[in-house]
């Protein structure tokens, strides 16, 4: 995914900084070039790259939001009736029609939803409207869960990177030896398991057998998960299991390929200590392909978090999403989906940027 975006970008040109240094006599071409490049030195190609990437990302997000809106509104039959379900009295239905503007054509509803989004207004929860809750705004429903999920994701990510790098590098360095074989099979098995299966196995071990950790993460509303560390352990371990396995394998492959390179042999022949060879040459150059797999893992985290939060009853955005889907609360699902899609796209952009940053060769090949 990240790689394909890179090639797509490469085929659309970037302004040539050399135009800016041309003489005035070059006329319109130089003037246009100077405009785009901002004068003497030219805009750093990285900034141009970043700007284009963000623009592409925004367009993608817009299209995605349209797809999300269409998909959630593809209810068979009368939307208000389905939403109201058993409470389908005329009063409830008319309230839904008003609050969710259900009588307007789809495109104009999309337009007003989008307009609201940009201003930070995610609309009103359909279920809350049906039950005429005091505060029916979606934002109030998903604010805290979003925070909780971010905490979970950040803790997992912070642990994931060093762990995967360590395991992957050690495996590659000891390639072929028993330690590497063991690690290879372990990562294969772990990486294959569905997250909730691995999580269930963890619960059976750490709760049923050892009684060390709680089986659910019931964090009372109003408190942050950071004060209930024991309830964070199993969800984090579950997410780490699958993602570390995946990333460690990629890191191992990357380091192995790098260790085969001639400049590593050269460094060794020059008499450098093995650790110095590793740190300075092998690791640095194995980083680039690993960035893409770490990006994939971070993206996976936002998908896997849905299942893991449900497994542990962790009050995060994943669980909120599942609950909203099961009661068909359109607006909440739309809001969460757009947020998750935006994060997904943002991770892509960040990864692309990091790869170009870490591999200087790519910076000038972006024509």
């Amino acid at each position, binding site marked *: 995914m990240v790689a394909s975006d890179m090639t797509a970008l490469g085929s659309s040109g970037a302004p040539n900084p050399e135009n800016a240094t041309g003489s005035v006599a070059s006329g319109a071409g130089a003037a246009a070039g100077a405009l785009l490049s901002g004068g003497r030195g030219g805009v750093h190609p990285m900034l141009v790259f970043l700007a284009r990437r963000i623009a592409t990302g925004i367009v993608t997000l817009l299209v995605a939001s349209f797809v999300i809106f269409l998909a959630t509104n593809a209810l*068979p039959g009368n939307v208000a009736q389905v939403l109201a379900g058993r409470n389908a009295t005329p009063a409830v239905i008319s309230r839904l029609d008003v609050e969710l503007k259900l009588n307007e054509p789809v495109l104009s509803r999309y337009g007003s939803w989008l307009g609201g989004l940009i201003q930070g207004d995610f609309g009103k929860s359909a279920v809350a409207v049906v039950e005429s809750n005091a505060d029916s705004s979606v934002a109030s429903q998903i604010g805290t869960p979003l925070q909780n999920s971010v905490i979970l994701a950040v803790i997992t990510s912070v642990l994931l990177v060093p762990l995967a790098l360590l395991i992957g590098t050690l495996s590659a360095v000891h390639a072929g030896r028993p330690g590497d074989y063991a690690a290879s099979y372990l990562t294969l098995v772990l990486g*294959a398991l569905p997250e909730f299966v691995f999580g269930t196995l963890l619960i059976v071990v750490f709760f*049923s057998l050892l009684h060390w950790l709680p089986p659910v993460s019931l964090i009372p509303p109003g408190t942050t998960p950071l004060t209930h560390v024991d309830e964070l352990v199993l969800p984090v371990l579950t997410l780490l299991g699958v993602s570390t396995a995946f990333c460690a394998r990629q890191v191992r492959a990357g380091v192995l390929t790098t260790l085969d390179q001639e400049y590593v042999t050269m460094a060794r022949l020059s008499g450098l200590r093995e650790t110095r060879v590793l740190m300075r040459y092998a690791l640095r150059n194995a980083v680039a392909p690993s960035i893409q797999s770490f990006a994939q893992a971070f993206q996976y985290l936002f998908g896997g978090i*849905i299942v893991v939060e449900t497994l542990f009853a962790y009050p995060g955005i994943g669980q909120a999403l*599942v609950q909203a889907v099961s009661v068909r609360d359109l607006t909440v699902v739309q809001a969460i989906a757009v947020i998750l899609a935006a994060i997904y796209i943002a991770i892509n952009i960040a990864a692309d940027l990091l790869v170009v940053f870490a591999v200087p060769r790519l910076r000038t090949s972006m024509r």
Partner: protein
Amino acid sequence: MPGVRARAAWLTGTREGIVGLILLLFVVAVGLVGPLVAPHPITAPIGAPGAGPSAAAPLGTDFLGRDVLSRVLHGGLPVFELSVASMALTYLVGVAVGLSAGLSRSVLDAVLMRAVDLFLVFPPLLLLLVLMTGAGTGSGILIIGIALVLFPGVARVVRTATLEVATQPYLEAAIARGETRFALMRREILPNISEPILADFGIRFSGAIILAASVNFLGLGSHPPAANWGLMIAENRVIIGTNPWAVLIPAALLALVTVSVNLLADAYIKGHRREGGR
């Protein structure tokens, strides 16, 4: 015939291949034959809820007092059915789109690929959930939803492979010979793109199984009182203290499916990398 033996070497000759095959056959057997040999009905309680293993119920009872063993034996089929059905649809659409994109020398290629890429923007489970909010949770929707999530990957692989074949001289020769389009597909193109597709198949299938199991785990698939491995894990969490087997056995079986499929996929890729070379 030496050809068949050699071609199957990746399966029977490597450790991963054999272990993967045995595990997969075992789980598939449990799933397919299970419903025929289950000792108790799956909806009637036979004892106290959450009771541990006993003579009548070797794996104990579930959260409603039903026999875990019988429900486990019935619970594989729905997962397999969903995975296989969605895989069939995935490949039907994915191969069609990939072939069309790869063989067309026009803007159709770009248009198709942009459309396909759109679906790759979403986290897989998210796309599925969004679809189910609108369209409901019927099994038809699930099959279509999982296929929607998986087909872009297949389409890309098919397109890449087709692009490589499209520039080969033997294809030009076949066209010059006057072969019909259908014969072209059947004799020149499809056999030569089958290897990358098969290499990718394992990962797709694993993805389909995980999605199918996850959706059921989230309670959005089979409805109770149906027996379904994913659903059983979710509903028996309440008795995990008294009878962990009700959760452990379905989890272990799901683990066996995904691990064996991954082992086989790994064995296939390794086996063909050695022969084919880079």
